[in-house]
C-alpha cells in the first residue's frame, strides 16, 4: 500500500511552492512525523512531515523546482509492500533496493498520470512535456509539437509564451517584469495574492457583522501582573477559544463543493500578523481548553515565526476563525474581511477610556470595540450574538474572577 504525499494547501492564498530541500533520500525508511522536505511558499518557508511510516520513493519534485498545490511530491511505500518486492537473489536483475525503487517509481508515475486533466481528443505529448505542462498550468492543446510524429516535447513548452496562470497576465505581470529583484517581486506577488483573496472573500462570502464594546479593565489589571509575557491579544485569544467552545458553529467552515458546513474537528484560531512580506495568518491549532499561559507562549512563537517568514506545518493548519487585533492602533473600531476558507474574523479596535454606565453609575472605563464578521452560510445572527456575548463575558467577568 503506497501513500502519495502531495503538495498541501497550507494557506488560503497558496497556489504553489518551491521545494527547497529534501531531508530524506529515495529508499530511506521514514517514520510518521519525521521531516521530509522544506518548501517555500509565497509567504513562508516551512517543513513537511511524513504522514506515516514507510520507505520513501524518489522525489517527484527536485529541490529548486516549483510544484502546484496537489502535485505529487513523493510516494511512501509501506514496509509490507516493500518486503513483498524485495525477494531477488544476489545475481537477480534488480537487487532488493532497486526493485523496491522501481515499484515506488511506478506508483509515482501512475499517480502523476492519474492526476492528469486531459479530456477530449488526446494530444500527443511526451511524458516529460505532460509533466512540465501540468506544473506550469499550460494547456497542451494550445501547442504545436515538434518532436517525433508531431509529438509535443519539452522544447515546445519552453518556446511557448503562454502564461501559466491568470494572475500573471495583465498590468501586474508587466510590473513583475520590471521588478527590481526577487524580494520585491516576492512581496509584490504576495500582496497581489492577498488582494485577490480578499476580493474573492468579499465577493463570495455573505458576511454579516456584530459588534460590542467590551470593558477591558479586568484584563488590564490581570495583565499588569505579567511583565510582557502576555499581551491583551492572549486574553482575546483565550476569550475566542471559550466562545468557540460555547458556540461550536464557529468551529465549522463552509465547504463550497458539498454545499454545507463542516466541523474542523478542533479549535484552530488564526492571528493576523503584519509582516515585512505582507499580512500573514499563522494558526494556533487545537487550542480548545488551552490555558492563558500556554496560549501566550504559542502566540509568541506564532507571531515570531510569521515575522521571520518560517511557519511550520502546524502553524499553517486550517482555521475557522481569526483574530485581527489593533488594540494599540488609532482606530476605535473596524470590520475585518473574513479570510477565505474561514467562517469568522474577530476585529478588535483600540483600547481607550470611555464614559459608560456601570452598576447604575457613570464611570470611565477602558475598553475596546469588538466586531465579529461571520459567514451567514455557516452561522446565523443569534449564534453570532451568543458568540460575542461569550467573548464579553470571558473578558469582563471570567478574567476578573478566575
Amino acid at each position, binding site marked *: 500500500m503506497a501513500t502519495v504525499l502531495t503538495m498541501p494547501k497550507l494557506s488560503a492564498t497558496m497556489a504553489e511552492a518551491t521545494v527547497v530541500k529534501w531531508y530524506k533520500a529515495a529508499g530511506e525508511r521514514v517514520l510518521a512525523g519525521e521531516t521530509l522536505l522544506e518548501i517555500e511558499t509565497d509567504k513562508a518557508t516551512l517543513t513537511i512531515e511524513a504522514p506515516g511510516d514507510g520507505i520513501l520513493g*524518489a522525489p*517527484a519534485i527536485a529541490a529548486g523546482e516549483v510544484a502546484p498545490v496537489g502535485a505529487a511530491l513523493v510516494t511512501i511505500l509501506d514496509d509490507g509492500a516493500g518486503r513483498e518486492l524485495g525477494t531477488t*537473489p544476489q*545475481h*537477480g*536483475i*534488480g*537487487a532488493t533496493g*532497486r526493485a523496491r*525503487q*522501481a515499484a515506488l*517509481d*511506478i506508483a509515482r*508515475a501512475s499517480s*502523476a498520470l492519474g492526476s492528469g486533466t486531459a479530456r477530449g481528443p488526446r494530444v500527443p505529448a*511526451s*511524458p*516529460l*512535456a*505532460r*509533466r512540465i505542462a501540468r506544473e506550469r498550468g499550460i494547456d497542451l492543446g494550445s501547442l504545436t*509539437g*515538434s*518532436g*517525433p*510524429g508531431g*509529438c509535443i*516535447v*519539452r*522544447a*515546445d513548452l519552453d518556446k511557448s509564451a503562454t502564461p501559466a496562470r491568470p494572475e500573471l497576465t495583465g498590468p501586474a505581470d508587466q510590473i513583475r517584469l520590471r521588478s527590481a529583484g526577487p524580494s520585491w517581486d516576492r512581496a509584490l506577488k504576495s500582496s497581489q495574492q492577498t488582494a485577490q483573496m480578499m476580493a474573492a472573500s468579499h465577493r463570495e462570502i455573505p458576511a454579516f457583522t456584530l459588534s460590542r464594546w467590551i470593558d477591558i479593565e479586568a484584563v488590564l489589571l490581570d495583565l499588569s501582573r505579567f511583565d510582557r509575557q502576555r499581551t491583551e491579544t492572549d486574553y482575546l485569544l483565550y476569550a475566542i477559544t471559550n466562545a468557540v467552545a460555547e458556540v461550536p458553529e464557529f468551529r465549522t467552515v463552509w465547504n463550497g463543493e458539498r454545499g454545507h458546513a463542516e466541523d474542523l474537528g478542533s479549535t484552530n484560531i488564526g492571528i493576523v500578523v503584519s509582516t515585512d512580506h505582507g499580512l500573514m495568518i499563522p494558526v494556533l491549532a487545537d487550542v480548545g481548553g488551552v490555558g492563558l499561559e500556554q496560549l501566550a507562549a504559542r502566540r509568541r512563537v506564532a507571531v515570531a515565526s510569521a515575522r521571520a517568514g518560517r511557519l511550520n506545518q502546524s502553524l499553517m493548519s486550517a482555521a475557522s476563525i481569526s483574530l485581527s487585533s489593533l488594540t494599540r492602533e488609532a482606530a476605535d473600531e473596524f470590520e475585518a474581511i473574513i479570510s477565505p476558507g474561514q467562517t469568522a474574523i474577530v476585529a478588535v479596535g483600540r483600547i481607550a477610556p470611555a464614559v459608560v454606565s456601570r452598576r447604575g453609575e457613570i464611570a470611565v472605563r477602558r475598553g475596546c470595540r469588538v466586531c465579529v464578521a461571520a459567514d451567514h452560510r455557516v452561522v446565523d445572527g443569534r449564534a453570532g450574538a451568543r458568540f460575542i456575548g461569550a467573548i464579553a463575558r470571558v473578558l469582563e467577568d471570567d478574567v476578573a474572577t478566575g
Partner: protein
Amino acid sequence: MSNLEAMVLAREGLVTPETATYREAISRAIGDEMRADSRVLILGEDIGESEGPLKTTLGLHKEFGPTRVRDTPIAEEAFVGAALGLAVAGYRPVVEIMFADFIGVCFDQIVNSIAKHHFMSGGRMHAPLVIRAIGGGGLRFGPQHSQTGESWLLNVPGLRIVAASTPDEAYGMIRAAIRDPDPVIVLEHKALLGTKGSVIFGEAGIRDLDTPRLVAAGENVTIVASLAMVPRALEAARQLAESGISAEVIDLRVLRPLNAQVIVDSVKKTSRLLTVEEQGVHGGWGSSVVAEIVQQAFDYLDAPPIRIGLPDTPLPYSPPLEDHAIPSVERIAQAARDLIGRSI
C-alpha cells in the same frame, strides 16, 4: 578499481597506460591472473600451442605449459562441464568458447548446472569459473559464427554477464571475472580483436563488474550500446555533434545483473533514449533497459525510446546484406535525430 580512479592514477604517473590490442589485452589478463594464482587455468579449442583460433591466448602455452593451458576436443558441453568440476574442486578455470554461437552447444551445462550450483548447494558451494565467448558479426563468418549471444542467458539467475568494448575493459573485466567467486560470462567481439587502445595493466587495471559506464558525455540524447556497437555509437556521437546534437554514450558493459542507475541518471538529463545492440531487439537487453527507464524515469522522457538492432532474420552471409543488417554509424545517428525531431 574504477576506471576513473585508474585514470587519476595514470594522470599522476602512478601507473602507466600502454597501447595494446584487444586480443593482447585478453591474453595478458589471463596470463597475469595465472601468474598471480596457481589455481587459474584455461581450457578451450586450439588455445594451446596455436594460441587460440582467434589468437587470444598469446604466449600462455609457452609460459604455463599444456597442463594449465589445455587444448580440448570440439565438445563444448564436455569441457564446460569439466570446468564446473574443476571450479567446485578448488580451481579457477577459464573456458574459451571459440565462437559465442557455440554457447548453444553447452547451454544445458551453463543454465542447469553452472548457474544453479551455488543455489542448489544451499549456498555452501561456489562455482568460480569464467566462460569467455568470442562473438559478433561483420567479418563474413555467416549466420552460425557471427552472433553475439548477448541475450541468450539474460534471464538465467546465477549468472553475471559482462561485455568488453575496449582493450582496457577486456583486460580489467577478465581479471575481475577470474577473481569473482561465482560464474561470470565474458562476452568478447571478434571485430574488436585487432583494435588498439590505451590499457592500464596490473592491479590498477582491474575493473568492476557492476555497472554501465559513461563513455561520452552529452545533453540531448542517451545512446546505450555494447561490444562493437560502442565505437560505432561514439562515432555517431561525433557526427551528431557536427549538426549541433550532443549525444551521451553509455557502454552497457554489465548485461546482467542490470544496474540501470547510470542510464536513468543520463535519461533524466537528456530525456531521450536510444539502445543499439548487435542482435534482434525482441528479448534483447535493449528491451530491459527501456523497461527500466520507463519504470524509473517515465516522466522525464521527451520521446518514445528507440531500440535498434539486427533485423528479425539470421545474419546474412552476403557481405552487402551483412553490412546492411548490422547497425551502422549512420543508422545510429539517424535514429538519434528521429528521437529529437525538430525540437533542437
